[in-house]
């Protein structure tokens, strides 16, 4: 692999290769010395046109644990705010010798533009672009599911039994603001490639245009989805009020009542079911505190697994000899 731009074009084998490598990275994170020398001498630039402390520190931790040098570039306060174009920024990064660029951009397709333009030789990792994709988030979600569902015992997350596995037949419900969620899209493509059955649960107003042509089941009622699909994984999405410039639902109380994972719905989940959330959570809106703090919740595991998965992606993209440009 040369770039990681989306999960839509990621093959099942490549996905499993990343997840298996992440198992090795996770094992290294259990040791006293967490650092590996694999990317010594490489430079990784975190190019963030949008604020995201969580994703940026996760990538930063991942790159540093592989011994890479990390440069954090935030568009705010940089030449970008003075009008510099993506092309000029890319050429600057090329000139300083960046080996990998982790890019977060509000415009869908910006990472692909960076990768295919020929402005830069570095490997490009999409860390979220507009409402398009967020591939490492989907990979860490799949990694978390695989460990919880196939690891050694219920509620325990570990590597035994999960290595090499796909998610064949696993039922996953993705609930909430799908329209504004690149996480939901990336998850849909990846989970499909891994053999899982995905259901979107959302009010019609929060479904993306064209979703009915995607390989996904759609429910408008969370209660009906829990009853009919009996999901083993319930992934709650954050209500992104900052992206909502119109009224997508009457008010927060009604949203919480219809689509929130409250205590009663938590009780009705199937035995082994897990509750996921990409964070940050709006407690009391899309998820109740009890659900967020229950043993079913994988929220903090997702954060920890994020570092392992990003280490795997950086390693697989940047460690070998660079493949010829496409």
């Amino acid at each position, binding site marked *: 692999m040369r770039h990681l731009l989306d999960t839509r074009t990621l093959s099942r084998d490549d996905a499993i290769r990343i997840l298996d490598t992440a*198992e090795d990275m996770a094992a*290294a994170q259990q040791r006293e*010395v967490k650092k590996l*020398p694999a990317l010594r001498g490489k430079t990784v630039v975190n190019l963030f046109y949008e604020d995201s402390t969580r994703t940026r520190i996760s990538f930063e931790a991942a790159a540093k644990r*592989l011994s890479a040098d990390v440069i954090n570039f935030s568009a705010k306060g940089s030449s970008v705010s003075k009008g510099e174009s993506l092309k000029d920024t890319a050429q600057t990064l090329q000139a300083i010798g960046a080996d990998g660029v982790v890019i977060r951009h509000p415009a869908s397709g910006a990472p692909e533009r960076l990768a295919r333009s020929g402005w830069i030789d570095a490997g490009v990792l999409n860390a979220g672009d507009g409402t398009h994709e967020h591939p490492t988030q989907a990979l860490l979600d799949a990694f978390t599911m695989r460990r919880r569902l196939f690891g050694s015992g219920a509620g325990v997350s570990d590597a035994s039994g999960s290595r090499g596995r796909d998610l064949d037949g696993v039922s996953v419900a993705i609930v909430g603001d799908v329209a504004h969620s690149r996480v939901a899209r990336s998850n849909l493509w990846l989970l499909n490639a891994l053999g899982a059955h995905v259901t979107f649960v959302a009010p019609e107003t929060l479904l993306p245009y064209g979703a009915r042509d995607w390989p996904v089941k759609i429910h408008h009622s969370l209660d009906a989805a829990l009853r009919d699909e009996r999901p083993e994984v319930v992934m709650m999405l954050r209500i992104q009020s900052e992206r909502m410039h119109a009224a997508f639902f009457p008010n927060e109380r009604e949203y919480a009542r219809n689509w929130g994972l409250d205590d009663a719905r938590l009780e009705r989940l199937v035995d082994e079911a897990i509750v996921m959330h990409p964070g940050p959570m709006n407690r009391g809106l899309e998820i109740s505190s009890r659900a967020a703090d229950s043993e079913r919740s994988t929220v903090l595991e997702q954060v920890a697994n994020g570092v392992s998965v990003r280490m795997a992606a950086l*390693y697989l993209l940047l460690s*070998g*000899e660079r493949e010829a440009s496409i």
Partner: protein
Amino acid sequence: MGTRTVLEGAEISRALTRISHEIIEANKGVAGLVLVGIPTRGSLLAQRIAAIISRIEGEDVPVGSLDVTMYRDDLAQHPTRAPHPTDMPVSGIDGATVVLVDDVLYSGRTVRAALDALNDHGRPRAVRLAALIDRGHRELPVRADYIGKNLPSAKHERISVRLTELDGVDDVTISDAEGRG
């Protein structure tokens, strides 16, 4: 030039038995001994040696498997290598005599990487090296303490170790570079 078998199953097993005896003798028993194999075939050999030692001494020896992929100095010169699982004994390696086990000792670079990797897991009292085949051509000052067979070879030749657990047969063969014939 074709492919020639240099060790057959019975010879491999005799070599491993001899190495096991040598390890016990040098270590004066099995106290503080840890065997660590380098995947994939080194790990299988470490397990076999551990089984032979426990048969001889009546005591089990901790066995680990240490992936060195991330520690190699030639990562940038080859296509990306997928790592193997590392599985170190829970008792750890601090203060132990670690015997690293690999199938073929060649340039010595794998062993160098293994020493670095080992360092991240703890501080052994001593590290020894066992190899089923020593084919020469060292690029680093590394030598093995226990050797199954010295096999002088030309650089273009290819040494293949096959083990029943993985390949269905036990043997060591030598062939020319492309593995023709």
